[in-house]
């Protein structure tokens, strides 16, 4: 049998099948079934690569889509397996032609339409682009695609927190993270590069998922997620540190918890910074599952609503038990997922992005 050349050989060979990733994987936690574990999926990828399995084997299709792509498996892997990259290569192959889930295809196509995204941002009132990128700012604020349309207040909050440090270059499209995670990493690569041309220098992002993708294509040094940027910038420029007051409800301090963004945590390795910032303005509460995927997983909640809901329920139970005022997120899809979930449960907990939380303390 000759190899099918679907995967990068070295990446696929790195796994030693030790199984350390099993307990970290949310889909394995749901099923206790090797098929839906990281190691099981790598065994499937290898069988696909070597021809031990038929390309149309239904388990390949099912497991490549059941995976959340959260990359929690990478953080516990002793062999340093780059699972996220392998998954992208798998989906590139698996989700080609008629095998692309229709919703993924629609999203991929929609987010390639830059004029539409720009118009949506204008209509919804996201931060206004200010022309070509300026060379004299610390970073360029990235507006995102869906974020611009669905949560236009985020970019405005960032500008209030960082009035002079950043600009908002015109001509920004989608960064392509969505394409990378949905079986079209070639387009994804090109889109991140295009974004990098519009925004030469450091790119500031409010979304962990976008940040990890852009960093993968352009290099880690080109990307700063909001929380790491704020701490670094305010540390270097104490005169720019605004007075952040401690937030209260009904005369007592606000209780706030964080839901990590998987790709911020597992891809960019940013975990302490958002917690530290929340603790400056509120009483910080660590939820037991703060670091595990909320089930939004980019477009997963749209493609696999039932599985997404099962993953989400664990988090909603913890949130309800923790007597919170706010749940803080650092990634747009998580924000949408949490708002919908908590609304369905009739919860009073408010979901805020870190940028909104901090801006409300100005």
């Amino acid at each position, binding site marked *: 049998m000759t190899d099918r050349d679907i995967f990068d050989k070295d990446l696929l060979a790195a796994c*030693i*099948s*030790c199984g350390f990733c*099993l307990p970290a994987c949310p889909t394995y936690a749901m099923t*206790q079934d*090797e*098929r839906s574990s990281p190691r099981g999926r790598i065994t499937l990828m290898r069988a696909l690569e070597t021809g031990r399995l038929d390309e149309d084997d*239904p*388990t390949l299709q099912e497991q490549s889509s059941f995976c959340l792509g959260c990359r929690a498996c990478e953080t516990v892997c002793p*062999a340093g397996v780059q699972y996220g990259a392998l998954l992208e290569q798998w989906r590139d192959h698996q989700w080609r032609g008629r095998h692309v889930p229709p919703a993924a295809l629609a999203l991929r196509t929609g987010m390639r339409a830059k004029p539409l995204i720009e118009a949506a941002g204008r209509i919804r009132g996201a931060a206004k682009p200010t022309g070509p990128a300026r060379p004299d700012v610390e970073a360029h604020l990235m507006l995102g695609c869906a974020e611009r349309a669905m949560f236009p207040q985020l970019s405005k909050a960032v500008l209030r927190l960082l009035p002079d440090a950043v600009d908002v270059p015109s001509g920004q499209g989608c960064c392509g993270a969505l394409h990378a995670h949905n079986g079209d990493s070639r387009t994804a690569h090109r889109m991140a590069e295009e974004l990098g041309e519009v925004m030469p220098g450091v790119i500031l992002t409010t979304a962990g998922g976008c940040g990890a993708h852009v960093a993968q294509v352009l290099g880690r040094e080109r990307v700063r997620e909001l929380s790491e940027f704020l701490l670094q910038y305010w540390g270097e420029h104490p005169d720019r540190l605004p007075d952040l007051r401690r937030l209260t409800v009904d005369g007592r301090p606000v209780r706030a918890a964080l839901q990590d963004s998987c790709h911020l945590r597992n891809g960019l390795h940013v975990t302490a910074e958002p917690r530290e910032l929340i603790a400056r303005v509120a009483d910080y509460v660590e939820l037991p599952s703060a670091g595990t995927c909320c089930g939004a997983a980019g477009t997963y909640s749209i493609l696999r609503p039932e599985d997404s809901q099962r993953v989400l329920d664990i988090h909603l139970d913890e949130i309800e038990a923790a007597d919170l005022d706010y749940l803080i997120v650092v990634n747009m899809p998580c924000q949408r997922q949490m708002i919908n979930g908590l609304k369905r449960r009739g919860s009073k907990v408010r979901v805020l992005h870190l940028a909104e939380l901090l801006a409300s303390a100005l």
Partner: protein
Amino acid sequence: MSTQGTTSRLHSGPGLPADVLAELRGFVGDQHVLVHDGDVEPFSRDATPLFRARPDAVVLPATTAEVSAILALATRRGIPVTPRGAGSNLAAATIPEHGGIVLVLTRMNRVLEVSQGELLAVVQAGTTTATLADAAAAKGLLYAPDPGSRTVSTVAGNVAMCAGGLRGLKYGVTRNYVLGLEVVLPTGEVMRTGGRLWKDVAGYDLTRLLTGSEGTLAVITEITVGLLPMPATSSTGVAYFDNLSDAGRAVAQIIAQGTLPATLEFLDNRCVNAVEDYAQLGLDRQAGALLLFGDDGGPDVVAASLQRMADVCTDIGARGVTLAQDIAGSEALLYARRCSLPALARLAPITMLEDVTVPRPKLAEMVDTIDAITAKHDVTCATFGHAGDGNLHPTVVFDPGDGDARHRAEAAFDEIFHAAMALGGTITGEHGVGAAKRPWLAARLGPDQLALLKRIKTAFDPAGILNPGKLGS
């Protein structure tokens, strides 16, 4: 390997008969019987490199009654059944070489009881070792066996392999903590051996016999384990030596003076350098051996014990000795040992981790022998292990694309196993025999013992369906 004895009467051929599948589905539900190529492929291997075989079906039961029904059917129809926990064993013990059913116990994963009054816990087969240890710790109790794989391995898998760990010298291994088992015989009878008693000599010690039986005698469904009070504190120190024989003498001296420490781990020079390349911990790259020593108990006892061990190392002529100042310092030192495997695994795609064991005084000699053998066969090998137990982990890494690298590695291990036996040691201290070390089992046990193993196997498993080809088959 050859298909021996009873295994030749087993069902073989592509797929299981339709009526068998229908019965299995009736027992556990359609979604818990897997038969398609892609569905069974992930169960065709475990953590052992180079071994692989696809089962005809994978069955995931949720209750002891289901396990019983499946086994009775399998015996009736002569269908091989290979029990599987997390599939983290390093001996190819879960590879279904004869096809048939892989029986996965991971859905049975509840902690049923933790008793402070009786110092014991009861768990279902598929509970992970870490889940058991955490449940015990939540009540101030210690589950002592701590294999490096504790976050992933199941308690039944630990019992079936008699897993060891980093605390073996002071606390023993899994067998010292198994009080009772609920098992299902291959013929379907559900049975309890032992129980909640630390003392019980009624009958042969079947609990001990089943511990380390590698899934060949019965399927374990529930385990009662003994617990200990959690030690108040622990601490760690590190010493560097010019060569391994000095480190070996330090180990002998530490034990001779009456200390039975919780931790006595060593890394050889190559391992130190691999770890240093990987994690930049500031280790002494010139050292011939690194010895980690540690103890637990009351604060005064621990401090005195560590000082005694540090003094011994200094007296023997250690190049340097450091004691951790606090818990964080201890963790930092232990990290050097914990990241040995990650550091080595990154050197090449295939990592073969073995675990020959020799009498403690022969440790340094064995390491020298390993170095000579691996040099002769031109294979890359680094060794670390449990110095206090004489348990070594020579770890060979190679690229399968590199000509006859695999061949050379296998030839080196063959010599290493024989060398260990010549020193009064064994082919495996804690990882088990499985399919991987079967070729050397006869040399280790001799013909009479091997024959007895087979008679025991037949008494438990007359149809020879359980994990055929492994121990006693």
